[in-house]
């Protein structure tokens, strides 16, 4: 700490920085927590929500940490009384901006209302579907913002339910713009943007048409980016609260990109799929198939038993019957016509381990190199 070049002070401690970094970057690098709402990794900062404000010595007003570049010698306080009171005020305004009832205390039977989320089937539309995984709710808890000081705004825009995947509930939208950035700067599908002005502001697609009639390709990046309950997966809504599901990290089963995903599991069923924001190659991004195309797993059409053709029809059989028949037939054909009269089509869908076993079986047991898969198709 001998030289003052490229040094700033945060909460009384010196830190070095690189040109072009924001206050938020430097703080995060040094494990100093500054809360954010509208900030989206990989997109340009907008400073829209003003939750990340910090006090900079000598500045007339509080500054947004996400969009303020650091300058040499800057002296920053991230949790000063002014900062805390500003954030609390911002949160109270956000709570009043729409249908955000989870933090507002004082109402009659509020506790019972809140505890509804613990019920097995709580699909009470009054309780936000994002209860328990909402950034606004978390921040209100942290800053003890209870709302109620301002009159609650009722949106004039009805929720959009007219597509198979995404519910847009404008009553719960805080206009942070994360979805707009996710769509335009991360996926670059350019389907949604801010529309109208002032208190009429709304996130719109293609001149305020439903998503299904816009350029939207239902990648769901906006849903994953939404910090509140304004954008939720249609099929997952009210199926299970987040603390009742188990998250398993795995690799997507569709194309060759190999997106890293979380399967959200409840009662042996996939409830929803989200992208793992911390892993390459996709860093949280997914496509419509990866995010919404998992119904096949629990489909009632899944094969449930071995089948053997008898009298021209496929009929249920035991594993022992099926495997014995296959082993006998393969042995017989190999004996009579040689291994090269048998072919194996292994699969681009199964694991490496399984493909290796198919390769070993074909060559070592059937004694042929007739193995291939659909790489060409």
């Amino acid at each position: 700490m001998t030289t003052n070049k490229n040094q700033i002070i945060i909460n009384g401690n010196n830190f070095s920085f690189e040109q072009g970094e924001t206050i938020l970057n430097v703080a995060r690098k040094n494990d100093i927590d500054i809360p954010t709402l509208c900030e989206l990794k990989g997109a340009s900062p907008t400073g829209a929500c003003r939750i990340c404000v910090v006090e900079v010595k000598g500045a007339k007003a509080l500054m947004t940490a996400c969009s303020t570049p650091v300058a040499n010698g800057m002296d920053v306080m991230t949790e000063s009384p002014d900062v805390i009171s500003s954030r609390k005020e911002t949160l109270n305004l956000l709570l009043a901006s729409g249908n955000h009832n989870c933090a507002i205390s004082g109402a009659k039977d509020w506790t019972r209302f809140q505890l509804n989320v613990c019920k097995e089937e709580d699909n009470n539309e009054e309780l936000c579907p994002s209860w328990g995984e909402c950034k606004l709710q978390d921040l209100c808890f942290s800053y003890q913002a209870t709302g109620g000081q301002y009159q609650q705004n009722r949106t004039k825009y009805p929720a959009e339910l007219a597509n198979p995947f995404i519910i847009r509930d404008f009553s719960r939208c805080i206009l942070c713009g994360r979805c707009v950035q996710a769509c335009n700067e991360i996926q670059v599908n350019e389907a949604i943007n801010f529309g109208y002005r002032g208190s009429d502001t709304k996130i719109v697609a293609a001149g305020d048409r439903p998503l299904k009639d816009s350029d939207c390709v239902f990648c769901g990046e906006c849903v994953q980016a939404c910090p509140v309950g304004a954008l939720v997966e249609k099929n997952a809504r009210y199926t299970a609260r987040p603390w009742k599901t188990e998250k398993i990290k795995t690799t997507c089963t569709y194309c060759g990109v190999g997106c890293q995903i979380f399967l959200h599991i409840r009662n042996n069923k996939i409830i929803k799929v989200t992208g793992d924001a911390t892993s390459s190659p996709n860093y949280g991004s997914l496509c419509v198939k990866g995010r919404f195309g998992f119904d096949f797993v629990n489909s009632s059409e899944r094969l449930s038993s071995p089948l053997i053709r008898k009298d021209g029809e496929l009929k249920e059989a035991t594993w022992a019957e099926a495997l014995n028949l296959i082993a006998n037939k393969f042995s017989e054909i190999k004996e009579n016509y040689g291994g090269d009269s048998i072919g194996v089509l292994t699969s681009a869908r199964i694991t490496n381990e399984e493909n290796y076993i198919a390769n070993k079986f074909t060559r070592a047991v059937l004694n042929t190199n007739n193995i291939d898969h659909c790489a060409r198709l």
Partner: protein
Amino acid sequence: MTNTIADIEKADVILVTGSNTTENHPVISSFIKRAVKFKNKKLIVIDPRKIKLAEFADIWIRPALGADVAWINGLMHVIIKEDIYDKKFVEERTVGFEQIKEMTAKFTPEYVEKITEIPADKIIETARLYAGAKAGSILYCMGITQHTTGTDNVKSLANLAMLCGNLGIEGGGVNPLRGQNNVQGACDMGGLPDVYSGYQKVMLPEMRKKMEAAWDVPVLPDKPGLKATEMIPKAHTGELKALYVIGENPLVSDPDLNHAKKCIEKLDFMVVQDIFLTETAKIADVVLPSKCFAEKEGTFSNTERKIQRVRKAIEAPVQAKEDWQIISEIAGKMNYSMRYENAEEIMKEIASVTPSYGGITYDRLEKEGGIHWPCPNTEHPGTPILHVGAFPIGKGVFNPIDYIEPAEKTDEEYPVYLTTGRVIYHYHTGTMTMKSEGLNERAPECFVEITNEDAEKYKLIEGVKVSIASRRGEINAIVKISKKAVSGTVFIPFHFANAAANTLTNGALDPISKIPEFKVCAVKLSPL
């Protein structure tokens, strides 16, 4: 891919050809779109359809179907003539430059225009843009490979990349985008007729010896086996008696389906192992239920050669088994013991016999998240970029390649070209995606994409079903007038079994890779 997905954003110029990236690899398409929109990178799209990505491109050029060797040679012609190739790279790292110079001499922009219908000045402009990049990345997909000249097309792209020194560097590369979750892994693991795992050739006695010892068998067969597209016709001639199909659906995915079905019906015995009763399973002798990806442990290798874990999240339907278990049990009944505790134990064996997977362990995958092969030992960090400093064979070899016409041309009876492909909402033969109501709502049925001009010409009406016929068969599909189409060519996705585009496609194969020419055939359109 020679390079990684993240590397795409590091290229100065991205050349995408034969890849409808926004529909087939949507997440990769975002890397390309971001590079163009926010990082000031240049994009060249070369595709017979005006695909979505073309809207982001600095240059979109439209070659005639099956004319890829011609435009690639044309680019090289200009780059050599204007002396803007990477001399240092060519001199130090390649052989055969004189031959490529000789071959491309006749591919003047004017000559190329005649073959490809690409204006000569666009060839020059494109050549200058690609050659001018410090790092240029080529991304391609089945629009390049699914031709009778598929191998030629790929080799030509490699020639172009070498000429401009775009291999072994960040942001460069020749990058095939692989279509299926583990198509890379199936190839890596010896799911090919001529190689064991890690591309160790069955023809080489030392490789056979090694595998004979590892697998404890006296003699392994020495001649390469049949490719998938060769097996089916051999069933017709009776040379192939039995087929064991694991998680494939050739009765929708193969070319010239009417013929393929006739061939398969001639088999004495067919086993299909799958998660659904597919079109192929319906005519099998034995059907076995498998577990799906969410029900088992294992690994997939993605398009950038990265080995990543697959983890069990739920219990499978009671009777379903893992594919490796089923195969091992059949082996046991054929008096060959294949006993494994779990997938991890199989990976240990893979690592022990596969040099490029030598350093792969589940412990490492857990800690490191994913490892790019080649990774020869447990200390090796993996290889995100191939060919840095040298090629595996030493110097890169230029392959002089001449242009050959596609196997089928339009004529009076079949006046329109058909090219097939996919849509974003479905996957391959639809066995999985068509179980999702939402995906079906977005893409409910087969369609034929056509220009307004052609629709008028053949008296076709938007949204109405028409007949599309080739020399091999006929299907009916809904007319979809689209700005993506180019007059003279229609596009049909092949996902839909009830209007299978592969009823129409040509079974003509590339002589080396045996890939069918899905991207070019001649059809006629008529109102029903």
